[in-house]
């Protein structure tokens, strides 16, 4: 292009650039086909990979932690068996099978067994008791007699303050075949032979404490006047009575809209008749994606809790629409019920009406992108629902962060979750 000497260089640059086109590079179409195939595969498969990876990590962590707990439990059983031996040894030597079994030793053994059984889960009662009694060959007491004793009776913990010797003497006065519960002296738990640490409360706490919470959630999402439904699964690990850390995966749909700007596809490309009465009112988008949060939960009182955290949001699909409004002139029909005030309208005989229409917008800037995600805040209230399940209602608010906040739509949103925990 021959430059115009009277023009400024910037105008000349703009003109040159307007007409500029680069040559076609050989192999570009083939590379495009590869790119398209790879992109399609990437879009389709990555959510599954992410989900699978998250599931594997959660499973691994769960197994590791659960295995750790079981090991602790088994260690406690061993400790209690040793304790029993220590308690048994001073007096009657119950572990020695050669000695005759009298009622005193039998009651003593039963008492020890009860203690061990109390400290362990019910499923292991029989095994523990059998192990305790295995040293006495001549022991003819039936297993069911032992099992019949009320292991969880409060009397086990509410015995009198007499010592171990006294307990033996009390036991010796009762018939050996008695099925009633033999009171266990408190000193057995705090016996000087064992050490001063009280066994039962600590062990029982570990057995009963729930370290993991699984929940399924339904989360209606409210943005402007649209309500969308999403949902997912969540898992939480209780760090202490008050605090837990949680994660999960949830499917989410989010709608947003904004006023158009000049960069949007111009109306003349979308308008069929080229009418100037048709105008682009809003651009709306509907995103669907996976939200993977990491939350810190703090219990406030028995039923309330607060949640705060961040989440990664990956857009699986975006549908963007241009919303048009068209003003059209409609001839008013003559009506006998016209009031005097309508006489002017009747004379003109023409009314302007708005027609709203929607077209798909080609631009989908969110689709296929991995956005940083959201800041998440929520407050929950637990409702007792079923014996092993809690129902909670959790209002929440999500604020976009990272590259998600840089985009053209305002993606602040909120709603409330309905959460069922197991």
């Amino acid at each position, binding site marked *: 292009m*021959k*430059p*115009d*000497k*009277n*023009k*400024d*260089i*910037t*105008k*000349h*640059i*703009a003109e*040159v*650039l*307007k007409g*500029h*086109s*680069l*040559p*076609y*590079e050989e192999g*570009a*179409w083939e*590379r*495009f086909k590869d*790119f*398209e195939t790879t*992109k399609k595969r990437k879009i389709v498969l990555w959510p599954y990979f992410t989900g699978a990876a998250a599931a594997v990590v959660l499973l691994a962590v769960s197994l590791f932690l659960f295995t750790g707990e079981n090991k602790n439990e088994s260690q406690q059983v061993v400790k209690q068996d040793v304790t029993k031996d220590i308690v048994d040894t001073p007096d009657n030597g119950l572990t020695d099978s050669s000695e005759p079994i009298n009622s005193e030793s039998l009651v003593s053994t039963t008492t020890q067994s009860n203690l061990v059984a109390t400290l362990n889960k019910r499923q292991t009662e029989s095994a523990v008791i059998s192990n305790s009694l295995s040293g006495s060959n001549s022991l003819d007491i039936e297993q069911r007699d032992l099992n019949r004793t009320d292991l969880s009776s409060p009397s086990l913990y509410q015995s009198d303050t007499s010592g171990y010797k006294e307990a033996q003497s009390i036991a010796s006065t009762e018939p050996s075949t008695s099925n009633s519960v033999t009171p266990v002296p408190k000193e057995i738990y705090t016996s000087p032979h064992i050490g001063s640490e009280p066994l039962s409360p600590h062990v029982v706490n570990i057995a009963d404490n729930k370290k993991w919470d699984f929940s399924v959630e339904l989360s209606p999402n409210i943005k402007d006047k649209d309500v969308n439904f999403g949902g997912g699964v969540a898992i939480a690990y209780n760090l202490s009575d008050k605090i837990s850390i949680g994660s999960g995966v949830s499917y989410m749909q989010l709608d947003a809209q904004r*006023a158009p*700007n*000049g*960069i949007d*596809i*111009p109306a*003349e*490309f*979308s*308008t*069929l*008749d*080229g009418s100037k009465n048709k105008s682009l009112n809003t651009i709306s988008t509907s995103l669907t994606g996976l939200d993977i949060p990491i939350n810190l939960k703090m219990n406030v009182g028995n039923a309330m809790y607060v949640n705060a955290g961040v989440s990664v949001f990956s857009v699986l699909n975006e549908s963007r629409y241009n919303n048009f409004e068209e003003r059209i002139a409609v001839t008013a029909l003559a009506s006998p019920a016209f009031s005097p005030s309508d006489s002017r309208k009747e004379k003109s005989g023409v009314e302007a009406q708005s027609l709203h229409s929607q*077209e*798909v*917008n*080609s*631009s*989908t*800037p969110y689709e296929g*992108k991995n956005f940083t995600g959201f800041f998440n805040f929520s407050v929950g209230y637990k409702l007792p629902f079923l014996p092993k399940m809690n129902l909670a209602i959790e209002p929440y608010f999500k604020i976009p962060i990272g*590259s998600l906040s*840089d*985009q*053209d739509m305002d993606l602040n949103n909120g709603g409330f979750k309905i959460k069922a925990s197991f």
Partner: protein
Amino acid sequence: MNSIPISFVSEPVVISRDQHVPNLFWAINACARSNDERAKELIYRKLYGYINAVISRYVKDIHDTEELVNETFIKAFKAIHTFSYADMEESKVEKFFYGWIGRIAANLSIDHLRSKKRLRIKDDSVSEEELRKVYVAPADNLEVQDILKLLSQLPDVQRIIFNLYEVEGFSHQEIAQQLKIPESTSRTYLTRAKQRLRLLYSQLMEINKRNN
């Protein structure tokens, strides 16, 4: 539209009397109607250079440019059914199609720069010195490559605003809405972009003179 030709682009096109020469108008139709692979290939080959040039005006990295070119075509093919051209002359359709796909390319380029955090726009005003217009006349031997080099030396925001206003033809109001900046900021950056281009151009001419 009559029958669709059996082959074109990579194979020799046999034109019978009842067939049209495969052109962009046919390809847009065929692609919109049936997602025809051959039509896509024709569009791609025909518009590749144009799209590449549009994106090169915004993005400097050639690897990013190639990826954005392909992204542009993917989005365009996906949304081609929304490109309306009813009651439009065939000759105008091609022109509008260039504009339509060019805007997709420009939008993607701006989104790309935004995602890379390259757009840091300060809301400050232009100085009196900068406002003083000093016209610099273009030389005869100014090549496109020289112009692209000059353009690449502009900061990202200045380059985008110069492209949007001077090349694409947007108003400051439209640019302000797109970039979420005040109109005055758009004007400021355009003035700076022009001043910088004049300066860079003068320096380039000085170097050329010395070399000659």
